[in-house]
Each structure stands twice: as C-alpha cells, then as structure tokens.
C-alpha cells in the first residue's frame, strides 16, 4: 500500500512540476534559514558549557548599597576569593582574574597585548583550559610566570619550544611556564595569556579592602552543593568578614554568586567579558519559525487550491473502498515526502552558505554543531510535513465520491477563505519584517548622524587617539611630545587624557558643593585630561571658561562639568555652579566651567554626569586632530615622530569616528540579518502567491473568456485578476503595522537616544510588499487576460 502511495506521490510531483518546485523551493529555503538560525542559537547557548565542571562554577558579584541606591558590579574585591575559600566549606577553589594589557618584548620585537589576564594558580582547577606544555598545578605558582595560548606562543616563538623562554614586560622578565590551547570561541572569558597574579605588587588595597572592586572572582563549588543554599549563606559570610567596615563606611556590601551557565546570556550585568543578547536570540528564533511557517502555508495553500486535480483520484479510491484514514495518510505521506526532499536540499544549501554565514556572524559553526543529529532532522521533517500537510489531507480525504466523480464539485471554492487568511498571515509577516529592518537602519542612521556634542570631524581634521598605555616615560614628557606632534603641519591640535569617547570610561565617586553650600556625595564619569582637551575636542562652553593654566590656582585643580552633572547637582542655571568646590579621586578643586553635554558612549546609553579634571595625571592616550589630506604620508611621519619620542611604545592609533561607529556593530549586524530574513520571507511568500495566481488564473479562464466576449478590455481583466492581491496585502498591512510598531518600539527602548517611529516606514514596507506581490501575479493575470476566448470557452 505504501508503495502505491509513494508511486502516486512521485508521479503527481513529476506531472505537476511547477507546483512541486514552488513548494519544494519554499520549504527548502525556509528550512535552510531555520537550520542556520538554530545553529546560531545553539552556538550562543553553548557558551561556557565546555568547562568540565561548568555546572559547579559560579561567578561572584558585588553590589554596594548606600542611601538606598544600589551600585551593581561584576567585579569583585581581591580579598573575596581567599575569604570564600577559607570560610565556606562548599568552596573547593576560588580564583581571581585581573584584566591587563602590556607591551611585551621578545628579543627585540615589541608586541602590544591588550588581552592579558593575571590569574591565581588554581585557575586550571576551576576552568578546563588544557595545557599542551607545562604543569597546570605549578604553572602560575611562582611570580613572573606566564602561560601563553598556542597562537601567542606561535606568534612569539614560531615552532620552537617556548617553555622556559623569557618574555619581557617592561623591565620585568616573565618566564613561560606553560602553553595552553587557545580559549574556545564559546567562552565569555577571552584572553591571550595568563600571568601569575602574584607578579603584581600589591598597592596596599588589592587584597584587604572590601570597597574596591577590580578583580573577577570565580568559585568552584564542591560536587553536590546546593547553589540556593550556598547563596543564602553569603550574607552571613560577608557580615562576619566585613560587618564592622560596612558600618564604619555607612555602605553595605552584598556578595552574590551567579551560575557560570547564566553569565553569557542571562546575566543582567554588563562587564566583564563577552555577552550574548538573549532578546535578539528569541527574536531570531521567532523569525525562523515565521519563515518556516510561511513555507508551510505555501504548501497548504497550493495543495488545497489544487485539490480539484486530486478530487477524481479521491473519488475513485473511495469508491473502491478506501477508508478516509487511508486517504488522509496517503496525502500526509506526500507532504512528508516533499518535506524530506526539501530537507535534503536545505542541508545542501546550509553547507553552501555556512562560510558566508560564519563571516557574517563572526562565528565558526558547522552542520555537525546542530546537536539534534539525525533524530532532530527527522523530527523537523515530520513537524513540517504534518504542519503543512495536515489540513490538505483532512480536506482532500473528506471529498464525497458522488460529488467529485460527477463533476458537481465547486472547484477551488473549498477553503478559499482559509487560503486568503493564510496569505494575509504570510504578508503580514513580510511587511512586519521589512518595516522592522527599515526601523533598525533608521535608528542606525540616526545614531551615526547625531551631533555628538564634540567634533569627530571638523575643517581642522579628524580625531586620532594614540594609546601609550600610561607609559611612565611618556607621562614624564607629555609636554615635549605634544610639541613635537604640533610641529607637524597636518596636526592642528594635541591633547592627552585618561580615557577618550568610545574608549572605556572611569567612574569616580567624590563630593560636590550644592546650592546650600554643603559638600555632598556625587558620582561622575571622570575625564583626567590636560588643559587643551576642551579646545581640541571642540566642546562647547556654556558657562565659565575652558580649562587653561590661568583658571587654576596653585592649590586647586580646575573642574569643568557637563550640563547633566550640573542639573543632577540641583543647579538650574549653569552659571550658578561656577566657583563651587568639588573633590573627586582626591583632587580638590573648583568648578570653572560648564560644557554642553557630549556623548562619551554609544547612543544606546544616556549622557551621564561628567567631570573634566585638568590634572594631567594618569594619562593613557594622546588625541591628535589631524588633517586628512594625504593621510598615509601624514601617518607615516607621525609614526616616525613617535618612534623617536617613545621608542619603547608601538604606534597604536585609531580614528575616533571608527571606534565610535564600531559601537553600533551589533546593531548593524542585527539590521543586516533582519534584512536578509525579511527578503527571504517575502521571497517564499511570493513563491506561494505565484502558484496561487497561476492556479486562480487557470480557474477563471472561463470567466475571463465570457467577459472578453462581452467586451471587457485587457486592463480591466488584469485589474479583475489582481484586485484580490491588493486587498490581501492591504489587510496584511493593517495586521502588520501595529504589531511591528509595538515590537520595534520595545527594541528602541534599549537606546537612550532613539527615533520616533513614524508612519512612513510602514507605508514603504507595505508599498514594497504590494509591488513585489503585484509583480508576482500580474504576469499570470496578463497571460489569462490576453488569451484567445475561443480557447477558454471551447470546453464545457
């Protein structure tokens, strides 16, 4: 019997090639799309799962609570790890990691390494980072030890055995004690080398202070530990250790433990480490399902529309005694067969697309990562086959033989409302996806075009940041190096600072004088700069003066605040804060000026209170304003100046407009991916529409013939045959617009500075969809309308 079903199915497909092709292509593309998104999601979900003891590892976090305000951190105190290990028996190991960067010298070659980490020796007991050489038990025990990743070892020493070799960190020799395999991509911890933590000299507060958080702390809990119970013990632990200090400081310290498996996707804290975007994953998952749904709808629609071609067969089989279940099974089997064939094509497609996909998503996934194995794929084939084929099977098997065999069967009327409803669903999804894509790109454009409050680009040139990593020799000669740069004709300004916009930031707590004359706690983003900072960046002074040497007395440093800081401190008039006292990071000073708000971070984040402190201390980078005419030559000459001024430092520069733009990389990727998915959705929906249009045109041949005989013109007939599509897309637009609006409004909530969604983007999306849909059906309509009426009326 199954052989008979199979034969019928194969021969039906062979005879109705267009139908099979439309359905198969739609399903295959839909499945391929779905598989790729599943691969993406699986890859994200697997982050950090490669550690053998992943289920027992927790990341510690510290919150500070004072005056009811909670300051959340994923960085922790240096004292936390040893204290946990000593006090809590559940803790098998607790280790600290500290992010670092250094210029490392091997022989005569210098390398700027920004991804170093200082680590406790037990790091290899907690995490599964296998060593290819060296002993994990002892590698990081001695000061001045370094474990290189394979790729760094390769970079430094080629194929030579690196064990025991020396890497110079400034004046300090580091001995290579191990080589570990590179950190897998699926890890929220990313580093290129581990240096023994005791290499660093303790500045005094590293390992005792409960109010300074610099380290990442991870703990390996003993097997069988109940995480919730462990978490409940933490308040008592911290009270015993730091209770007195908390009362003295009038600040509460809260220590929390977060399971490692939650860190990447579920943590509500930003730094440190790579973070995934759960909301985006859910959105992509939903879109994958949508696209598959659209493909399934095609199948259902075409199968029911073409039901009359199968009606006779149903009638005959029933007359011969076939029960309904047998017929339903037969049609389901056909759907499954097509689904299986589509899956084979989809797998081929995925294999072909994977390299591009990996470049696009910056991943390296392979089909084997699906993890579902054969079982999952078969499951998907069945799910799709059932979803797509259930309704047609039910409908076809329900035909009454008397009616279908007598031709007393109103062809195509069957399930017409359902088909139109499904088409509306398809095009709603298409319109919504197109509109969403448009909104993502509008927001991107908005962010890129927004006035940042400082001039990335001006007639005087672009801003270029030159990182010298706080090098002491450079710090000691800031003035003379600035002068050397300024002597270059293309350099129109030079300043130095601790941080630059889009390049990390420093939070500072301190006090600020309020209108009542009292000094009260205040938190700011601190910019330690030299006096030319305001002018080189082109910040706009709205009260007081820019920083210059004259503005400060000997004992006080000059503070320039931004508008937000002034407002938050309770001053309505910026001028009122001039001359008020301020003290951050121990620098006593007074406010000499107020600048218009400028963006130091991407537009996802609101401008925070900010203090520019003209101390010239702790400088990390120069910022040069450089004319861009003949840039390669200018850069070469600047590099030569740098090599002379600071031979110990690499010429490590970046243009600020690039780093600022890079903050939107994930949004841009999101938008592009959405664009591709929207295109696919429209494509698949149009495949189905094409099939339906061909069918409907064929069905209405007689009607068209009669109308022509009665004098209808071709344009009139084309309009007649396409007006349904206009109506359906219109309906889809009405469904899609509010849904897309709500979803995208939520997406935009993540941005502190965002566009308002206007009607234009929806109208454009609707118009685009309508245009594509009309183009799809009008060819069929035209063919039907121009056919010879004698041909169409000859039958019946």
């Amino acid at each position: 019997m199954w052989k008979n079903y199979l034969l019928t199915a194969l021969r039906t497909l062979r005879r109705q090639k267009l139908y099979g092709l439309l359905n198969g292509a739609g399903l295959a593309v839909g499945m391929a799309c779905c598989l790729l998104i599943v691969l993406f999601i699986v890859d994200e979900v697997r982050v950090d799962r490669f550690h053998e003891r992943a289920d027992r590892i927790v990341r510690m976090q510290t919150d500070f609570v004072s005056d009811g305000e909670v300051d959340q951190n994923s960085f922790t105190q240096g004292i936390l790890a040893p204290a946990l290990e000593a006090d809590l028996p559940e803790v098998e190991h607790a280790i600290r990691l500290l992010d670092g960067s250094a210029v490392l010298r091997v022989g005569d070659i210098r390398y700027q390494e920004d991804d170093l980490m200082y680590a406790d020796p037990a790091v290899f007991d907690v995490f599964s980072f296998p060593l290819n050489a060296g002993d994990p038990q002892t590698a990081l025990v001695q000061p001045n030890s370094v474990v290189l990743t394979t790729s760094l070892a390769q970079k430094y020493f080629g194929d030579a055995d690196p064990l025991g070799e020396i890497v110079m960190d400034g004046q300090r020799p580091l001995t290579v004690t191990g080589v570990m395999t590179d950190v897998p991509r699926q890890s929220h911890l990313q580093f290129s080398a581990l240096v023994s933590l005791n290499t660093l000299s303790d500045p005094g507060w590293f390992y005792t202070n409960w109010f300074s958080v610099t380290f990442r702390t991870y703990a390996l809990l003993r097997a069988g530990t109940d995480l919730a119970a462990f978490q409940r013990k933490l308040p008592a632990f911290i009270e015993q250790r730091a209770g007195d200090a908390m009362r003295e400081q009038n600040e509460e310290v809260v220590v929390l433990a977060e399971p490692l498996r939650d860190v990447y996707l579920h943590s509500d804290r930003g730094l440190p480490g790579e973070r995934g975007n759960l909301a985006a994953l859910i959105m992509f998952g939903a879109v994958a399902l949508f696209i598959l749904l659209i493909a399934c709808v095609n199948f259902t629609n075409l199968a029911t529309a073409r039901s009359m071609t199968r009606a006779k067969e149903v009638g005959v089989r029933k007359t011969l005694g076939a029960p309904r279940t047998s017929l339903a099974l037969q049609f389901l089997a056909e759907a499954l067969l097509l689904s299986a064939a589509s899956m084979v094509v989809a797998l081929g497609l995925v294999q072909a697309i994977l390299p591009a996909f990996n470049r696009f998503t910056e991943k390296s996934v392979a089909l084997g990562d699906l993890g579902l194995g054969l079982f999952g794929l078969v499951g998907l084939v069945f799910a799709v086959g059932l979803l797509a084929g259930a309704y047609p099977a039910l409908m076809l098997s329900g035909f009454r033989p008397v009616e279908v065999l007598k031709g007393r069967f109103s062809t195509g009327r069957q399930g017409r409302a359902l088909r139109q409803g499904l088409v509306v669903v398809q095009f709603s999804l298409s319109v919504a996806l197109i509109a969403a894509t448009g909104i993502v790109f509008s927001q991107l454009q908005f962010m890129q075009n927004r006035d940042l409050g400082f001039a990335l680009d001006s007639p005087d040139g672009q801003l270029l940041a030159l990182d010298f990593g706080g090098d002491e020799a450079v710090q000691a000669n800031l003035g003379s190096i600035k002068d050397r740069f300024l002597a270059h004709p293309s350099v129109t300004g030079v300043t130095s600072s601790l941080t630059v916009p889009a390049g990390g930031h420093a939070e500072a707590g301190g006090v600020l004088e309020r209108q009542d004359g009292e000094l009260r706690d205040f938190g700011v983003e601190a910019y330690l700069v030299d006096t030319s900072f305001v002018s080189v960046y082109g910040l706009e002074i709205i009260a007081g003066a820019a920083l210059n040497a004259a503005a400060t007395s000997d004992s006080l440093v000059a503070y320039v605040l931004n508008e937000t800081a002034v407002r938050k401190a309770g001053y309505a008039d910026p001028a009122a804060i001039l001359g008020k006292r301020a003290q951050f990071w121990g620098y006593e000073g007074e406010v000499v000026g107020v600048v218009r708000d400028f963006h130091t971070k991407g537009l996802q984040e609101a401008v925070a209170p900010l203090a520019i402190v003209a101390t010239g201390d702790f400088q990390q980078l120069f910022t040069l304003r450089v004319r861009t005419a003949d840039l390669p030559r200018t850069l070469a000459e600047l590099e030569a100046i740098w090599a002379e001024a600071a031979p110990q430092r690499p010429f490590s520069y970046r243009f600020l407009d690039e780093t600022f733009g890079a903050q939107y990389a994930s949004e841009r990727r999101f938008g592009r991916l959405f664009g591709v998915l929207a295109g696919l959705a429209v494509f698949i929906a149009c495949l189905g529409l094409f099939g339906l249009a061909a069918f409907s045109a064929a069905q209405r041949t007689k009607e068209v013939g009669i109308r022509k005989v009665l004098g209808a013109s071709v344009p009139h007939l084309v309009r007649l045959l396409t007006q349904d599509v206009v109506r359906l897309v219109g309906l889809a637009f009405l469904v899609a617009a509010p849904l897309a609006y709500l979803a995208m409004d939520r997406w935009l909530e993540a941005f502190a500075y965002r566009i308002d969604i206007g009607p234009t983007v929806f109208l454009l999306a609707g118009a685009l969809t309508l245009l594509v849909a009309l183009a799809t059906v009008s060819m069929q309509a035209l063919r039907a309308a121009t056919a010879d009426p004698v041909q169409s009326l000859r039958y019946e």
Partner: protein
Amino acid sequence: MIQTIDLSKVYTADEVETTALNNVSLEIKSGEFIAIMGPSGCGKSTLLNILGLLDTPSGGQYLFDGTDISGYSERQRSQLRKGTLGFVFQSFNLIDELTVYENVELPLLYLGLNGDERKARTEAALDRVGMAHRRKHFPQQLSGGQQQRVAIARAVVASPQLILADEPTGNLDSQHGDEVMKLLAELNEAGATIIMVTHSPADAEFAHRIVYLFDGHVVSENFMQKEYALPS
C-alpha cells in the same frame, strides 16, 4: 439480493428542494442484469449512487441481502463497498498517476490481500478484458474503449457480487461500446449481478429487465421477452 422500499432522495440547496427520487421500490435478484433508463434528470444516477452505497437515501429502506443498510455510516458503507461492489463509470475514472496494472490492483490493496494473490487476480482480470499486454501503460496512453476495459477489469478484480455501471458506453464510439457491452454480458453470464444506467436502447437490449424512471418515479418495468443469448 437487493430490495428498496419507498426509497426517496431530496436535495436541498439554498431553500430550494429538489426531489430526485420519489418512493422507488425495486427488487433485484442475484444474477440479474438490470438497465435503468429515462430522460436526463429523472434520477437514474441518484438511484445508482444509492444502490452503489456512494450516497444515502433521504427516506425509505434499502435492504442488501436482507439487511437494511439505509442508515449505514460512511465507514460502514465503505466497508461493505470494498469487495462486494464494483463500479464502471461513463468517464472511466482511472487514476492518471497509476499504470493499468496498478489501477486494477488498487481494490485488492484496499482489501488487504497479499502480493501473490494480488498479482494472480490482477493478471486474471486483465486477461479477461484483453488488456494484459498493456499492463505497464498509463491511462492517457490508451483509447477510450481500452480505458473502459481496464475500468471493468478493476470493477471485477475483487469478484464483487454486484457491478454498477453508469453509462459505460457513453463516452465511446459504437464499436468500442459494443465490445464493452459484450464484456459486461459475459460477466453477467459468469454470475455477476449488474445494474446499469444507460441512455442507449441498444445497450439496454443486453439487460434482462429495463426499469424506466421519470421525475423520480418508476414508471414501468419491462422484462425482456427473449432470453439473452450471445449474438453471433
């Protein structure tokens, strides 16, 4: 074998009632060859469909081998159709996607017979209608008369007690029509009961008895005077 008592069928469409059959009482004995005649729209096909269990009556009784089956569900009717009844249609109704052989084999598949028996019976049925040499052809590759012979082979392959033929020669020229009628007559000779709807008086000549329908009523029953004999 078959007895109908006051059988009636009323179609209701958009508040218009059409009476297709009105109190039709008939008795058909095993081994009979009955022709049903009458003008278009008189209810011939409706009667045949009800007798063939493809349709249900609105009123009256339908006794099949003494059992009243007028209230049977679709499932029960389908069960009874299978193996008991064979159908021959005016438009042949062969499945285009199946070969001659596969079309004839189909009823046996639904009966659940095993492969060897299916093969033997299918070959025998094809031989009987002289279509064995075309077993691998598809219906579209055959003439109308050939298609109808295949359809007859399909109707008899499961050795049904009753064969229902709805204008079996309606789509055929006279020569092919004659061949088909002779085939039906042979089957009847061999013991099959046949009920045939026809417009053609010549075809009706093959029957033992002609039932005339007019506006849903049986208006006369005409027993053929002479015993049927094979024409030379």
